[in-house]
């Protein structure tokens, strides 16, 4: 069930009104049932797989809390191993096997390449696996650290993992932020309803009006990059930067909004990332729930910036390589992560941030950061590494005749540019705008109508669903 579907709209209305109609003690159950239905609507069988992970981590949490010393450490290690094992099996099996096979073939050893599809026909990557395994790991780690009491109520714990708004594409929550909320009786509140609905409509606008319209340009161009000139590729690269932001932050807005209508407050995932003046700042604004996850559970445990410069840089690079790999089992994602990691290290070594903030106007720093991020996105979006390097090469050697030749009309190109300007204006001037009480319903009506009239509707999945 996609957020940008009629199925979801009807589901949301039913679940939210049912939530407030039921007595408090039944609400967790209704939300858990609705969330299970939501997940089952993708591939029902994977609900069982998720159930196994939930029960395992639920027991692990209790075990970790009760044990001490090495046993406690062992229980945490086992829990992490199982979660990473599931993730690796489904997501990285083919990637590892292919690369091992390639390595061995250099030495003349024929290892063969067994693929998941070949060994287990019909087995697909469960939707949102990377998100909910990270959220599950977050729980056991926090219990281990003593920041969170182990949850004794299996249903409430299951809801922590399954809660439908953030189940398949985040934000990757922390137990301290949400578990207690599932035990609260959330009374109906008009402010929550208004804020939630407005976030949902704004998120929908970003997805169906902006992201899916820009996809009309980016999809065909990235599908055949060898046929494109530098002008078309440059436009596609810039449009993709905006598309992925509107797509993913649109999803997060809808998730946060849907939760908020029922009184739940989830973690903010984006803070106008393209206004960042440096790569470091970009990562404080982009996919915050993932970057803080890596910070809290990988970077800091590895020593963070407390063990000298060389170790700090190594830690940074490892975190970004892992972040790249988290996005997908492909070298293009690893390169994307490496670009960001190297840029961050470079900016620290050469103290670029300090230099730029003294010498350059703010808007130029922002533009430069956007340009660098856009080049990195090429590796993220291209079909493969070869395509990505070819696009970058072609962009580096433009000629005068390379005018963009886009697969949409001039009218629609102009409309795309107008939407991008409107997006940046809104993000800059009114980042947290919610219409006032008096004008709320007319504003919501107009915004919904615009989503319908200007929206591009098809079977456009959210980009981050694949991760």
């Amino acid at each position: 069930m996609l957020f940008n579907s009629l199925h979801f709209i009807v589901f949301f209305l039913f679940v939210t009104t049912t939530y407030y109609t039921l007595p408090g003690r039944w609400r967790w159950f209704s939300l858990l049932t609705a969330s299970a239905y939501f997940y089952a609507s993708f591939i029902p069988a994977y609900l069982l797989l998720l159930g196994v992970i939930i029960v395992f981590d639920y027991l692990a949490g209790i075990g970790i809390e009760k044990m001490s010393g090495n046993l406690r450490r062992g229980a945490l290690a086992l829990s992490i191993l199982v979660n990473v094992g599931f993730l690796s099996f489904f997501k990285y099996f083919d990637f590892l096997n292919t690369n091992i096979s390639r390595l061995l073939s250099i030495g003349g050893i024929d290892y063969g390449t067994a693929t998941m599809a070949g060994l287990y026909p019909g087995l697909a990557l469960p939707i949102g696996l990377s998100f909910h395994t990270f959220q599950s790991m977050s729980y056991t780690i926090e219990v281990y650290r003593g920041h969170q009491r182990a949850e004794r109520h299996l249903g409430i714990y299951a809801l922590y993992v399954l809660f439908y708004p953030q189940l398949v594409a985040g934000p990757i929550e922390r137990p301290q932020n949400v578990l207690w909320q599932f035990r609260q009786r959330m009374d109906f509140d008009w402010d929550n309803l208004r804020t939630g609905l407005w976030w949902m409509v704004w998120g929908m606008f970003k997805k169906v009006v902006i992201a899916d319209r820009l996809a009309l340009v980016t999809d065909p161009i990235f599908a055949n990059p060898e046929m494109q000139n530098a002008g078309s590729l440059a436009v596609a690269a810039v449009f993709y930067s905006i598309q992925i932001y509107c797509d993913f932050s649109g999803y997060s807005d809808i998730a946060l909004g849907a939760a908020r209508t029922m009184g739940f407050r989830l973690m903010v995932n984006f803070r106008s990332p393209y206004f960042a003046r440096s790569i470091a700042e970009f990562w404080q604004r982009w996919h915050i729930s993932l970057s803080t996850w890596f910070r809290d559970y990988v970077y800091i445990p590895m020593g963070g910036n407390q063990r000298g410069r060389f170790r700090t840089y190594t830690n940074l690079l490892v975190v970004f390589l892992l972040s790249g790999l988290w996005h997908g089992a492909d070298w293009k994602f690893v390169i994307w992560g490496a670009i960001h990691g190297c840029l961050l290290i470079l900016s620290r070594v050469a103290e670029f941030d300090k230099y730029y903030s003294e010498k350059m106007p703010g808007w130029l720093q922002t533009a430069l950061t956007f340009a660098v991020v856009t080049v990195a996105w090429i590796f993220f979006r291209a079909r493969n590494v070869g395509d990505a390097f070819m696009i970058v090469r072609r962009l580096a050697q433009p000629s005068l005749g390379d005018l963009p030749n886009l697969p949409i009309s001039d009218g629609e190109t102009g409309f795309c540019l107008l939407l991008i300007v409107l997006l940046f204006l809104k993000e800059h001037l009114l980042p947290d705008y919610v219409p006032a009480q008096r004008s709320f319903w007319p504003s919501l009506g107009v915004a919904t109508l615009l989503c319908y009239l200007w929206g591009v509707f098809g079977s456009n999945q959210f980009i981050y669903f694949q991760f």
Partner: protein
Amino acid sequence: MKTLFSGLRIAIMLVSGVVLWIGLSDRLQRKLYARGFIPDQYRFGDLYNITNLEQFKEMHWVETDGLDENDKPRIRSKNVDLYTIGDSFTTMDTSFYAGRRNHHIWLGTGVDTVSLDPEVHSILVIEVIERTIQERLREHYAELYIDRGFQIRGKSGPVTDAASNTGSSLWGNTLNREINERLEFLLFNSEAALKCKEMKARMMLSWFGRTHPGSLISRDRRFLFYEIEADPQSILSPFTPLADADIDSVVINMNRIRAHYLGAGFAEVYFCLIPNKVTVCEPGRHPHNRQITRVEQNPHLKTPLLTLSRQLRHHPEWYHKSDGHWNASGKRLWLKYVNDMVMRWSTTF
């Protein structure tokens, strides 16, 4: 005030719950449709249903699409049994055919086991629409036209029931992507909803020069096409280049199908290749692969053809303006070719 809000909340819960329930149940929706609670989604044509362009809305669908008693053959053959395999282009009602006995299979939906009468000529006609030629007459030709074609009593192997192979399940039927189509059908199929859709479609065409994804409009804006049929990127389009080997494979498989049915006791097997709407209405949209002509002229072809495409190409008006199918004139052309062939067999042999 509190009571009012409670009432509103419960009303939304009940209505959304009922809508979700109906959306989940294909069977319930069919019942509501059969009892007239929901209008026919395709009442103005399948391409209108995608594009919602008002200028392509055929208000008199029944008159332009339907055949009547006058289209039925006045004389029927006494010594030819007709068997047809077709799809949405071919007439399901066998009373329009001139055979002594007439059997029809909608490709892929069922299997018909028949006994051929040795006293009469049994003729098989297979209709294939241009966009499906490469799809149906390449790797899967035997599965589609032999395993799921006519099974001859006493000669064919165990019957493969197409319906049993579709892998239907409770989850597959309820939670699959079609739920969105069912919900749209249920909620946004009224005249008022169509007006809103038409407004959006009009704006999209005038602002951006395009129609909804899934459809394309001709350059002179007189015809609508399916995107998969007219987009050169689509492998089903007649604008996708085809190698001679692709044509040869099709021809060889047509010969194999013919050989199979001749071996089973049929007197002859005819193929009828129907051009895509875009081939008839806007053939110069992109360089055309001329697939039907190349099949017709292929030196390896042993199978006789009903070549109605030559006549049809001069009559774009024989296709519905709001639909990807031909209208009653196109259907009459098909019947004329098939029934004339039946009568030729009847009198010649």
